[in-house]
């Protein structure tokens, strides 16, 4: 209860602001429609109508909730109209991409911290790689992959790995360099090998940085998976859902897909937070 109360309060505040915003943003359309029909609207009418438009600028929370309920609970989960099904498709690509991406990020960071050549040659290019607008090359990635016969989950996972490796790389480079000079000196005085220094000092010292980065990375991986679903071919997943919703102007559907994606991300971040707490407690670091 102590934990739920603040969350509920904030949620309530958000819903209230949301209703207000919906009323304000949708009002223009309602007034225009009335003007076109040569009618005048009372405030009460206005309020009622702004809450129940079919193509609102901003759907009211209950409309989105209805959309969510319809997409999640009312469909068989194997149905292509089920958000659970689409969510699962996206989730699997996200997890695959996250696994590849964070592994690559950690490995590159280890390389960078230990090798001067890698430090000087990889980092600028890793930065450059992230500035390549992913949506621009996502279609190309998918086209190129398709032309060598790779379709489905793998191209999406690659795009999502592409986006997620970078936060891990940056965070880990920092974290692996975080130990105090004296701690490194100790290791040197024991003539510890690089591997030993890594496992016993650098890695544990980097964990706070690692987890902060992983949380960012998993959200990025989800974005990557969704981006990978936008261009040709993908017709499953939350990205495809967002796109078709957007294409047909079904605002409620967009918001339902959006909230599902956000919920997914939040769950993943929370799961990481839990793992973080367990790991840090196991190491005696959580106080």
């Amino acid at each position, binding site marked *: 209860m*102590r934990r739920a*109360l*603040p*969350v*509920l*309060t*904030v*949620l309530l505040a*958000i819903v209230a602001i949301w209703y207000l915003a919906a009323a304000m*943003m949708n009002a223009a359309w309602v007034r225009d429609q009335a003007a076109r029909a040569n009618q005048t609207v009372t405030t009460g009418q206005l309020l009622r109508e702004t809450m129940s438009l079919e193509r609102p600028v901003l759907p009211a929370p209950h409309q989105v909730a209805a959309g969510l309920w319809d997409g999640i609970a009312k469909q068989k989960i194997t149905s292509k109209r089920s958000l659970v099904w689409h969510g699962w498709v996206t989730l699997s690509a996200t997890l695959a991409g996250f696994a590849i991406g964070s592994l690559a990020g950690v490995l590159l960071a280890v390389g960078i911290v230990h090798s*001067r*050549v890698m430090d*000087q*040659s*990889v980092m*600028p*290019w890793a*930065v*450059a790689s*992230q*500035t*390549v*607008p*992913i*949506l*621009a*090359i996502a279609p190309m990635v998918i086209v*190129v992959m398709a032309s060598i016969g790779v379709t489905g989950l793998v191209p999406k996972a690659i795009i999502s790995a592409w986006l997620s490796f*970078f*936060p891990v790389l*940056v*965070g880990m480079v*920092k974290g692996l*360099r*975080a130990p105090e000079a004296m701690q490194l000196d100790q290791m040197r005085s024991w003539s510890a090998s690089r591997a030993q220094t890594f496992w016993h000092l650098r890695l544990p010292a980097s964990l*706070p*940085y690692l987890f*902060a*980065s992983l*949380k*960012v990375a998993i*959200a*990025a991986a*989800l*974005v990557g998976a*969704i*981006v990978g679903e936008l261009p040709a071919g993908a017709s499953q997943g*939350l*990205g495809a859902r*967002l796109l078709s919703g957007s294409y047909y102007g079904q605002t409620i559907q*967009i918001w339902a*897909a*959006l*909230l599902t*994606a*956000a919920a*997914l*991300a*939040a769950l993943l*971040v929370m799961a990481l937070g839990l793992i973080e707490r367990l790991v840090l407690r196991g190491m005696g670091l959580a106080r």
Partner: protein
Amino acid sequence: MAINLWLARIGSRASRLSVAAVFGLTILLLWELACRYFAIPAVILPAPSAIWASFTGNLPLLWGDFVQTILKGALSGWIIGALAAVVTAIAIDRSDFLQRGLLPVGNFVAALPIVGIAPILVMWFGFDWQSKAAVVVVMVFFPILVNMVAGLAATDALQRDLMATWGAGYWRGLWSMRLPAALPFLFNGLKITTTLALIGAIVAEFFGSPTRGMGFRISTAVGKLDLGLVWAEILVAALAGSAFYGIVAWIEGRATFWHPSQRRR
């Protein structure tokens, strides 16, 4: 690679740059050779030479796109987003109630995927750079927030005790202790988001834009199969992004010179 090993060992500033350059040139060379040797069609992957020709041939166009997307869209959004994230992080740090209420909800809200938000924000903020900046704000907010919250918690017990013995109030402790201690984390977030800001600004243009901007150019050039121009824009993005990152990293070096990761030994 042997050259690289040798250069790396010298380790001066100039050689640092040349190591990266040698590495890059090697890749470019392989790319060019692959394009020629396998006769990869230019509409799939143009050769570096073709990209360069397109780059030098379209400089005024590219400059206009750069101003529209990066200076107006990405930079303003990044600054606003970073400020918002820092302020929120402090609010979260300050208030236990917000910490328990806002952080979980904040995780959720900030995890809204940008590709979903972009069309909505374009609808709300119009076609010009304002909507791009809004997308960037949403995109950079979460990474900076997460890092900043971690950073504000990064002081050690002795440092906090000292502040307590001086009867320093919250804001004093924040300014003199927690903020400096959070800087390494903050810069971590700022560096990650330099590139995110570019991606966000460019991607948002795919969802509606005036007839200029890097995202606009890329999507229309893809339609025209003018892949040379597409890659020239990507090159601009890469150069701008690296410069942006480099500047932030340089400031980081100045601002957090005292952190073990920045000290030379």
